[in-house]
Structures are given as C-alpha cells and as structure tokens.
C-alpha cells in the first residue's frame, strides 16, 4: 500500500517535472500561456510529491516491509530503528530518491518564496531545475526503482551488516548529499539568469542563501567524513587524498569560490560571467564526484557497491546536464558584461585573487584525482599520493590565506595598502613569531609556513571587528569573522599535527612501559573479547600525561567473520592540547605485540576550526535570510495596502 503510494507519487512528480520543463521553455517565449502561469504551483506540488515518495520509503524501512525488494536486501527486522531509518538512503536506489526529493523540494521552495527576480528568470530557473531532475527521475523509474515488490515477500531481510552500523556512517552521506543537491539550485539560477540575460546583483542575492546552505552542509559532511576516517581507519591520518575524499572536496572548493564571488556580484555588480560560471562548475563538480565514486572507475579505500552500468547512466546524465549548461554559457556569456570596475587593491581585487587561487587548487585536485585515468590511456596504472597533492595545493592555498588576512580590511572599489597596514602590524608580528618558533624547532617547510600563517591569521581574521561597536555588527560580518577564524585554527591544527606529532612503533610485552612525547604508557595486559559477529584482541594501556593520573586506553584488533575482515579499533585520549592515539597491531613471532602510538598536539583544532567555519556560514545564512524575510514582508504589506486602496 505504502509502496504503491510512493511509486505513484514518484511517477506524478516526474510528470510534473516534465510539465515544469516545458513551461520553463515556453516562458522564454510566450507570455500569458496558462502553463506558464501555473509553473510555480507545479514546482511546489512536484516538491511535495517527491518528498512524499521519500517519506514512503522511510516508512517502509522503519516498518521493515519485506514485500519491498529494496528493504529485503538492505534491512533486517532485528536492526535498531535508527539504522532502519538511515538504511532508507544507505543504498543506491534510496540515495538516488533522496537526491531527487531534496532537489524537487528545493525547487518548490524557490517557486514559493523567490519574488525579487523578474518572473521570466524565475520560470527559466525552475525549468532548468526540472531539466536536471528529469534525468534522475528517469534513472529511478526505469533503472533503479526503489519500490519494486517481491511476491511472495521475503521471510527476513539480508542487511544486518554491523560494520555499517555506525552513527557517523548513517548521517555522513546524506549531509554531503544535501550539500551536493543544494548546489543544483545555484546551477539552475545560473542557467536561468544566462537564458534571460538577467545576471544582476538581485540574481546574486537570490542565489546566495542556497549557496551558503549547500556550502554549510558540504563543510559539515567533509568534517564528519574526515573525523570518521581518522578514528576508524586507524592510520593516524585525517586526510588521504583518496578519490572519494577528493570527490567531496572539489565541490566544496568550487562552492567556496562561488560564495565569495556571489558576494562581489551582490554588493558591487562585478564578476558577472565568472559567478555564473562558478555556479555551473560547483554543481558539475558534485555530479562528477558522485560519478567517480559510484562508477568504481577509480580505486578507493572506501568500499562502495559499484556498478559500471550505473556509472554509464550517471555519466550520460552528467554529459547532458553539464554539456547543455556549458553550451548555454558559450552562447550567452559574451552578452554578460563584466560589470563595475575596481582596482587591484580593493575588496573585489582580493576576492578575485582568492577565487583564482581556489579554482587553481580545484584544478590541482581534479587533475590529481583523474591522473590515474589519464595515465591509463597510455597503458600505465598509477596512483598519485600526498607527495603530489600536498605541495601542489599549498602553492595555491598559502598565498590565498595571506590575502584572506588582508582582503576583509580593504574597502570596495579602491583602497590603499597604506591605509590598512597599521591594522596588519600585529598579525605580521605574530606570523614572524610563529616563523621563528617553527625554525627553532627545525620543522619542515610546509608545516613551518602553516604555523606562521596560522599565528598571524588568528588575529587578522578578527581584525575586521576592530573599531566597530560589537552590538551593531551585522550577522554576515560575524559569520565571515567566525569562518576565517575557523580556517586559521584548522590550519594551525594541520601544521601542528604534521610538525609536532610524536610517533612510536614498538613491539611490546605486557608490563613494558613506552614513552611518547609527554606521555608514559604502561602496557598492562592483552585479552581476547567477543562481540556479536567479531572477535577481538584488546590491549589495556595505562597512559599518564607528564606524570599525571593515568587514563586507560583499550585499542582492539578486531576480526569480523561475516564478511571476513579485520579492523583496528583505535583508542583515543583527548586533552585540551591534543590527542593520544593508540593502535594495536599483530603479534610477532616472539610473542610481542606491535603497538603504534601517536601524540598529536592540537590535532583537534582541525575539526574545531572546521566546525567554526560551518558556524560562520550558519551566522551569515541567518543574517541574509532574516533580512530577505523582512524585505519580503514589507513588500507584501505594501502590495496589500495598494490592493485595499485600489478601485
């Protein structure tokens, strides 16, 4: 019953999307066509129906309706409710339905609230959104129907894989997904504005909340993913330049650039073609990322159920959507003038510089990720690792961070370095102190630059507040300051982790004492323990910081038997100034156990800083949406009064 309802809703939503595309196309030409007039309600109802289909799927999973093939293969009646719930999108079909539902709902919200832009532009935007959705509807309905029935129903589900029962895994993918799909709205706005030649500050203001929202979700998704890899993989690292990680980083880099260029367009009516281009690129990177991950075209440490036919389908969608958008860009961008002028030493100049640097970093990551494929065309199969990515991205990111310190202090249009140089004195001194400190410790070049920059940036990022009455500072400015401070802290964490981490790889017997940095660990015992479908060897370590009261750490080496797989459960002890990280390895032939221990000073700043970046985005979003709403209400009031006074 619910499955039938879900499928019906999905078909209806797809039909409405087709109508929405036709209406959007007609809106470019005809006025007064009834279909054009009905476009906004059509988009809203499409959003509701697609959301209803997703809700139906969630209900089916929560009830464990085993007459539905997807539930039977991916769930189990004995699973905890949380994982039944999360299981609804933890598979290919469900994740595609979530994608479509979020996309349709976002289109519905645009149709409902957006009234600043000329009607034609909004209708073209809705048409573009429908164009992109239609491909995904076709994919769902013809190639991966989530509501396929089983007759007779299965006696029990097959999806009781405890490896996947991790709260991080349950919510990390949808967070990223919402970010990816949120960028589709920016994409549609860009296409709509190009088609109707309406690239204006109003367009930028309409697009900005969507970019901000998507960017916040992407930031959070990457943070969760990175912390999960850090504690779960047991390698002591937090970023591996793995294709799956890069797939989420690339849209983030593009969205970060877009976020800043959209502000230039909104405030100064400059960077018009560039902003539109970034709007197209950001969502394109989301689709490219999804394709690279799902098609299995690149080898990754993250196991994904991959299927080459699905890869081809996504590739076809991607080629049509992005190809069409880039063709529209090629045709129309020449008529989009670049807009207002500015000097190099100005807020716009700094933002342009950082946009170029972000795009450069994006190019580096894209080339590095695709390099194995490029090499394969000449018959080689290779892997590009941190030896390439770290220095190559640093070339772009480090200068960008210097300009990030200066840019927010500059005025729009034209300014002089002379005016702001007194404000930069303290940050510059701090950076020099950081440099001197790093040199005295003899650390490598990249960490050294990182430490120096982070020291300067901590102060530089809050300098824009200097001389202002804090109570009158608007939310978007607080957001910028918070996000930039977050970047400074995260950079400090990264530099500190790579420069000052103390590592010990030892073979030890119970009773041995091992020193790592300021910690002294006593290896007290090893014992076997059994879990639901795994057995493990668990070591007990008593760790004392600088002679203080010891903390107990219990790293495990686990062996799962269904599917057979070994994992290392690392053990962490967090202090305000860093983390102790312990991994238990194999037993050597002489009976000693391999232990890998790290003391990582200030590593937690990476995620703390990342959270601040997301919080900054949230503050800016609240500020923008609140002022948009105020304006909307004021406009409604005036319209209402006019109607009452009317003839």
């Amino acid at each position: 019953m619910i499955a039938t309802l879900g499928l019906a809703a999905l078909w209806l939503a797809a039909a409405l999307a087709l109508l929405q595309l036709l209406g959007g196309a007609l809106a470019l030409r005809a006025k007064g066509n009834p279909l054009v007039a009905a476009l906004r309600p059509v988009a809203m109802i499409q959003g509701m129906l697609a959301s209803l289909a997703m809700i139906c799927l969630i209900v089916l999973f929560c009830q464990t309706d085993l007459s539905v093939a997807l539930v039977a293969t991916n769930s189990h009646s004995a699973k905890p409710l949380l994982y039944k719930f999360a299981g609804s999108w933890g598979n290919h079909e469900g994740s595609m339905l979530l994608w479509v539902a979020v996309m349709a709902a976002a289109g519905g919200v645009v149709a409902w609230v957006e009234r600043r832009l000329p009607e034609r532009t909004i209708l073209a935007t809705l048409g573009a959104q429908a164009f992109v959705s239609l491909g995904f509807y076709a994919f769902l309905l013809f190639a991966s129907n989530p509501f396929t029935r089983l007759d007779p129903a299965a006696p029990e589900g097959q999806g009781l894989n405890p490896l996947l029962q991790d709260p991080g895994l349950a919510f990390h993918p949808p967070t990223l997904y919402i970010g990816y799909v949120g960028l589709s709205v920016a994409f549609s706005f860009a296409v709509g504005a190009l088609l109707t030649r309406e690239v204006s500050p109003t367009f930028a203001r309409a697009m900005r909340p969507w970019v901000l929202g998507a960017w916040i979700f992407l930031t959070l998704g990457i943070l969760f993913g990175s912390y999960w890899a850090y504690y779960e993989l047991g390698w002591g690292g937090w970023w591996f330049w793995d294709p799956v990680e890069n797939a989420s980083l690339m849209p983030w880099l593009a969205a970060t650039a877009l976020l800043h260029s959209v502000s230039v367009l909104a405030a100064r009516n400059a960077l018009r073609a560039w902003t539109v281009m970034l709007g197209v690129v950001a969502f394109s990177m989301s689709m490219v990322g999804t394709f690279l991950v799902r098609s299995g075209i690149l080898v990754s440490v993250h196991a994904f159920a991959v299927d080459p036919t699905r890869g081809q389908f996504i590739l076809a969608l991607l080629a049509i959507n992005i190809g069409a958008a880039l063709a529209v860009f090629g045709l129309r961008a020449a008529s989009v003038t670049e807009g207002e002028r500015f000097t190099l030493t100005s807020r716009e100049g700094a933002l342009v510089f950082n946009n170029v640097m972000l795009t450069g970093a994006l190019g580096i990551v894209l080339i590095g990720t695709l390099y194995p494929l490029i090499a394969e065309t000449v018959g080689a199969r290779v892997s590009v690792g941190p030896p390439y990515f770290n220095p190559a991205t640093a070339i772009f990111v480090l200068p960008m961070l210097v300009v990030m310190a200066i840019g927010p202090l500059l005025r729009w249009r034209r300014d002089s370095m002379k005016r702001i140089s007194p404000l930069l004195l303290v940050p510059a001194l701090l950076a020099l102190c950081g440099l001197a400190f790093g040199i005295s410790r003899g650390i490598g070049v990249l960490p050294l630059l990182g430490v120096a920059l982070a020291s300067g940036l901590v102060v530089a990022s809050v300098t824009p507040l200097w001389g202002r009455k804090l109570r009158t500072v608007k939310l978007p400015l607080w957001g910028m300051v918070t996000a930039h401070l977050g970047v400074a802290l995260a950079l400090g964490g990264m530099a500190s982790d790579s420069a000052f981490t103390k590592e010990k790889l030892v073979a030890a017997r119970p009773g041995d004492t091992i020193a790592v940095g300021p910690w002294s660990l006593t290896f007290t015992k090893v014992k076997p323990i059994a879990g639901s479908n795994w057995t493990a060897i668990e070591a007990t370590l008593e760790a004392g910081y600088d002679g203080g009261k010891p903390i107990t750490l219990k790293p495990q080496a686990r062996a799962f038997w269904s599917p057979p797989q070994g994992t290392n459960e690392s053990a962490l002890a967090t202090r305000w100034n860093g983390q102790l990280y312990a991994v238990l390895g194999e037993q050597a032939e002489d009976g000693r156990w391999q232990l890998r221990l790290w003391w990582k000073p200030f590593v937690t700043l990476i995620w703390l800083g990342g959270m601040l970046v997301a919080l900054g985005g949230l503050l800016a979003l609240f500020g923008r949406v609140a002022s948009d709403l105020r304006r909307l209400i004021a406009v409604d009031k005036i319209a209402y009064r006019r109607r009452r006074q009317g003839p």
Partner: protein
Amino acid sequence: MSEQKPAVPSRWALWLPLVLFGAFVALVLYGLQRPAERDVRSAMIGKPLPQFSLRAATDDRPGLSFADMADGKPKLLNIFASWCIPCAVEAPQLAQLRAQGIDVVGVAIRDKPDDLKAFLLRHGNPFSRIGADDVSAIQFAVGSSGVPESFVIDGKGTIRYQHIGEIRADQVEMIVKKVREAGQ
C-alpha cells in the same frame, strides 16, 4: 593605481569550459570501456633484469639485488609504495600468494621508512625481501610506469610476465600459475 576593467574574454574562450568538459567525458568513457584484463606485453618480457642492488627498506627484511633474483627459484617481484591506494587494495591478494608458497619480494618506491613500517603493520608483510628504490631507478629499468606493478621472474632473473595495476582476487590463481610455469 588606475581603474582597470577586467579583460573581456574572447568569444572563443567562452567555449573553453565545454571543450575541457568534452575531454573529461571522453577520458572517463575510455576508462569505463577499458578491458578487465589489463596485462600488457612488455618489451622487457623474456629479457633479464638489469644489474641492481637496493638497500633494505625496513629493519626486519633484507634488501634486494640482482643476485637475490637469480638464485634458482621463481619469484613474484611486487613494486609498491605506502602512499599508493591500489597497493593497500592489493595486500590481501599478496598475502594469499604468500600462503600458497609463492616467494614475494618487494620494491618500495619513493617511500619513508616510518610510512612503510606503518603500511606493512596495517596491511601485513608478505615480502621476504624489500628493497628501497628512492629515485624510481629500478622501476624505470624494468619498464614499469607506476605502482602497483608485479613481475614474474624465473630462477635465472629473467622477466616472464608483467602485471600492471593491482592483482585482484580473481587473478591470484592466474599469478600462481604464471610463477609455477616460470619455475619449470
């Protein structure tokens, strides 16, 4: 400083993104179509390994030289690195080969001792010898372009078979057969 208008890109430049995107699509189409079997006839097959001598890459395994490769027993020479993701994917297959009695020797490319140690701790150490190739010298000498790559070497130090990319689970038997053939 004078106000400057950003240069307006020429009409052709506006089509550049589409052209680049077309190249991307062509590239991945090629990637999707690639044959599952990816071994190539290397020009080096049938030729002896070059003379070389590599220092030990770890404390607990000896280094690798030409003499070790020509000791009368067939071997699987695996070229790998700790920073290479496919190498991690390949590790269980190397362990299986080892369990089937194949002598696996390794060459670690451009690696740091600590990283290598950690990699072997994490993924197991199937190698009887590991040589450190810090400048990719051997890699180029045997006609290998990337990591991972494996060579079947007979008892006289002659290359019998070259396998590009990671050895997959369904290829283990094939490799065992190749090594056994090389031993006859």
